[in-house]
């Protein structure tokens, strides 16, 4: 009875539990499908990317929905995490042979690095507002992507060598191996990412984000979102909380990047995976899932990742991205256009008045 009461009254905790349960149920369903062999290889290949996108969407929602600042450079933090993690795994490939241990350390390092960059970038740019912040974060994302494309790092018995020109400029002895090859990126990262690790990372991400939202710090962050001046006047340290949310969001994006990197043989930084295209894609997940709604972000990421693949299986390969675009526009109009919202309210009012009233509830 006591337990029931607790669930009944703590609405937030119940909502969080539903979100965790949803992820765990999805995991169990996938495991059953895998065990019975009713999953196509295409779907199997999508399992880890789905986790990656879900984590990215949840982490971006922390910036966009909870902090209320538009960031278009989220893929940049993912890029930092991916390259840090892949670099680490490549270096210790022969030392640590247990896959899950290696990727766990890589995730910690990758997210720490991305978080550090989030902190460093956030310090100057979080003073800007709205569209200016959006374009500056977009700029940082592009800078990160461009710089990663010209970095060469190699290792020989004398230690690490670093160059931004070419492989030859590394000046290594003949035993030296190039690890990061400029535009060709990192090849041969151990494929340590599994669906289980992805789901665990997603649960950890959810745990961090949901707990942050429901904490004193989280309420301070949301107060800044709702009214900065009022928040400041009651003594909330704006810079501190903005930076906190932004760095955590960056760190989580970094961890998604590590997962992404360990799912690929070759990791390169191109416009499609770490450029503004990717940042915009993640933003689309967040907005369609519902800004500020963490569970919605996961659902949005999963549906929008599966939708193009679903259209592919209907033999609409040529048209699939076109249909995706149309669906995106229509859903946005239906969800946000003032006239549509009025229309929907009218419809629900009519439906509600026709339904028999339930006694006593609400």
């Amino acid at each position, binding site marked *: 009875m006591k337990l029931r009461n607790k669930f009944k009254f703590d609405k937030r905790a119940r909502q969080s539990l539903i979100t965790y349960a949803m992820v765990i149920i999805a995991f169990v369903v996938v495991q059953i499908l895998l065990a019975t062999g009713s999953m196509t290889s295409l779907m199997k290949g999508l399992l880890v990317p789905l986790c990656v996108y879900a984590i990215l969407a949840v982490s971006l929602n922390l910036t*966009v929905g909870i902090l209320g600042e*538009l960031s278009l450079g989220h893929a940049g933090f993912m890029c930092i995490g991916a390259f840090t993690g892949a670099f680490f795994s490549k270096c210790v490939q022969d030392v640590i042979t247990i896959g899950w241990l290696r990727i766990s350390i890589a995730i910690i390092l990758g997210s720490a690095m991305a978080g550090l960059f989030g902190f460093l970038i956030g310090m*100057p*740019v979080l*003073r*800007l*507002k*709205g*569209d*200016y912040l*959006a*374009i*500056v974060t*977009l*700029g*940082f994302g*592009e*800078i990160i992507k*461009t*710089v990663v*494309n*010209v970095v060469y790092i190699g290792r020989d018995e004398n230690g690490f060598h670093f160059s*931004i020109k070419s492989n030859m400029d590394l000046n290594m002895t003949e035993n030296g191996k190039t690890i990061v090859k400029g*535009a060709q990126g990192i090849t041969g990262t151990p494929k340590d990412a599994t669906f289980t690790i992805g789901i665990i990372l997603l649960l950890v991400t959810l745990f961090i984000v949901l707990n942050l939202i429901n904490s004193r710090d989280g309420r301070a962050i949301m107060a800044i979102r709702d009214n*900065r*001046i009022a928040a400041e006047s009651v003594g909330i340290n704006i810079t501190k909380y903005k930076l906190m949310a932004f760095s955590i969001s960056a760190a989580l994006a970094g961890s998604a990047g590590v997962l992404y990197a360990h799912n690929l043989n070759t990791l390169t930084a191109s*416009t499609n995976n770490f450029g*503004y295209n990717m940042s*915009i894609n993640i*933003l*689309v997940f967040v*907005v*369609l899932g519902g*800004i500020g709604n963490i569970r919605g972000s996961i659902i949005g990421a999963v549906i929008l990742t599966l939708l193009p693949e679903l259209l592919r299986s209907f033999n609409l390969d*040529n*048209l699939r*991205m*076109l249909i*995706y*675009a*149309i669906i*995106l*526009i229509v859903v*946005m*109009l239906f*969800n*946000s*256009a*003032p*006239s*549509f919202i009025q229309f929907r309210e009218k419809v629900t009012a009519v439906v509600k008045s026709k339904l028999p009233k339930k006694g006593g509830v609400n």
Partner: protein
Amino acid sequence: MSFLQYLINGISLGSIYAIIALGYTMVYGIAKMLNFAHGDVIMVGAYVIFTTISTMGYPPIVGVIVAVALCTVLGITIERIAYKPLRGASSLAVLITAIGVSYFLQNMALIVFGADTKSFNSIVKFGPFHLGGLVISGETLVTIVSCIIIMIILTTFINKTKAGQAMLAVSEDKGAAVLMGINVNQTIALTFAIGSGLAAIAGSLLCSAYPTLSPYTGSMPGIKAFTAAVFGGIGSIPGAFVGGILLGVIEIFGKAYISSQLSDAIVFAVLIIVLIVKPSGILGKNRQEKV
């Protein structure tokens, strides 16, 4: 190459950015939205010119006129279907819709024209000119001259005509503009029409100077021009001009003197530094936040 040569090339590229940035900045000033599909209107314009000149064999000037006309219609249609219903909705919703429109145009071009890169025949049939040690291509000359002409016409239009004054009024205060009897919807449609027509011109100049054309041609110049608009102070027309030219010059100098691979990073780094020092851009107005 000499410093002066790089400077001319930079101004030429910057003029293209400035023309594109005008479209961004006008739409932003009036509708307060980031029209992410603007870069793709450039691409559509370039494809229209490509089809009329290379496939149908009409003279370049006909191609440009047809492209401007079609892009104007396209701009108004996009505004009517995708953006107008969202007036009053959150700016993020409009942004995502604009992204949807951008995807739509890219994939439409992909289906109609195919994914392969087309080689674009320059619309400029004269040049290059040799001036001392400098080489000025016909495209460079046409680009810079058109940019200046467009700036003069646009400034005159906004300051001297009723429609232009209506635009200023709407960008200043939409509610007050309605009270003064200005048709806000019409003014916004006009802005989109002008912006998209300019995008078609920018498309013809861009593809003449860099003669390749694919469904993704417009997106990177679009992003850079948007950067230029923010750089100069978004919403300000002289700002778009200054921002565009500066961005082009910085990009070419970065390519020439620092690193060709890092030029994009340099462009964005300069933008970030400018915005941190002057958060509303070079010529932007600083709006005080009120309680």
